[in-house]
């Protein structure tokens, strides 16, 4: 679809949302985000986000036997995700309400 806005999706939020239910390694995050949220994260973007989220303590690495190290969301990460989700929910409700009321060029 030509007008999809997912290219402007917030990758840190997508990664936090992906890790909210269970720990995942990099490839599992990419697959989950792609299948459930419809956004394709590249390796460069994913690991830039992982490094930033780890640096600020929103996710943490788990021990791993192989090279595919899994990450889990921290308590601070859950709080940040909940706060951001609530804000996005408000925006979504507002957008749907206004679209439903005929807001925009058609209703002006």
């Amino acid at each position, binding site marked *: 679809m030509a007008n999809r806005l997912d290219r402007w999706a917030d990758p840190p939020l997508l990664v936090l949302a992906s890790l909210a239910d269970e720990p995942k*390694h990099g490839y599992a995050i990419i697959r989950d985000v792609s299948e459930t949220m419809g956004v394709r994260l*590249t*390796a*460069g973007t994913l*690991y830039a986000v992982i*490094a930033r989220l780890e*640096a600020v*303590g929103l996710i943490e690495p788990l021990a791993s036997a192989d090279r595919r190290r899994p990450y889990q969301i921290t308590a601070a990460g859950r709080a940040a995700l909940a706060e951001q989700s609530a804000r996005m929910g408000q925006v979504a409700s507002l957008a749907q309400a206004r679209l439903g009321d005929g807001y925009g060029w058609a209703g002006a």
Partner: protein
Amino acid sequence: MSRTVPAEPGPLASLALMLYPPAWRERYGDEVRALLEEAGSGPATVASLAVRAVPAWVNPPRHLHDRESRMRASVGTVLVAWSVLTGVGAVFVQLTQLQGFRAPGHPLVQWCYLVFDAALAASVLTAAAGGVPLWLQMIRLARQQRRRRELAWLWTAVLVPAGYLALALIALTVVHDPEASGSWWFAGFAILGFGAAGLASAGPAVALKRLAPGGPAVAVAAAAAGLAAATVALAGLASAIAAAGLCLWTTSFAGYHHADLAWVYLLIVAAIAATATISAGRGVRATFAIPAR
């Protein structure tokens, strides 16, 4: 979507990974390779990896930022660049101020001389104040750990300049002929001087890397390196303006020196000053950064 047989990352993807800082590669390199083996490494992935390497250098994640290592690297880089710039400054003094070149009616050149002198003196004092305590700490460390090679590298900072000055003094005493001590002698001693400055500064820089000292002396040296780099860059700027002014307004200087030389001088000063300033900036930033959790 999933692959049953993992494929090695392509050469371009491996090359893109090499663009990342060593600390980043050490922490995430294996994970990214494992991911590429599963997800593939097409052009979009390679491009994404290459583009994301830039912020990894410019603004490294805090938990990967090795402050002391960064400070040591900056001190070493600034020391070598600063020594060369100071040598270039000495050549500038010899070719302009000591030859009595002035630009009557153009006070800019005279002001530039003053700024150059003051900035260079401040830079030398700052470098000494920040560098000597660290040098002494490394001498102690090398003695305690019986590191003879590192001790030898450290002493180059004293022995090489002393040897150079002794050689120059002997040569001038033996030759003692104003006609003979012309431009070839000057060029020879200038080149030898740059070699001596390079060796004298590279010695402690090598020892700094190998001994990896820590503590307040490194932070003080990194902060001093920032100030020394800024002041020597100011001296370089003043000397470049003075050289351009002399080329424009002083016939005897312009006739004695090719204008091309002033441009070469300007380019050398700008390139080395930029290297010193960028490295010093990163070192100062590391000095005052909040330590990682």
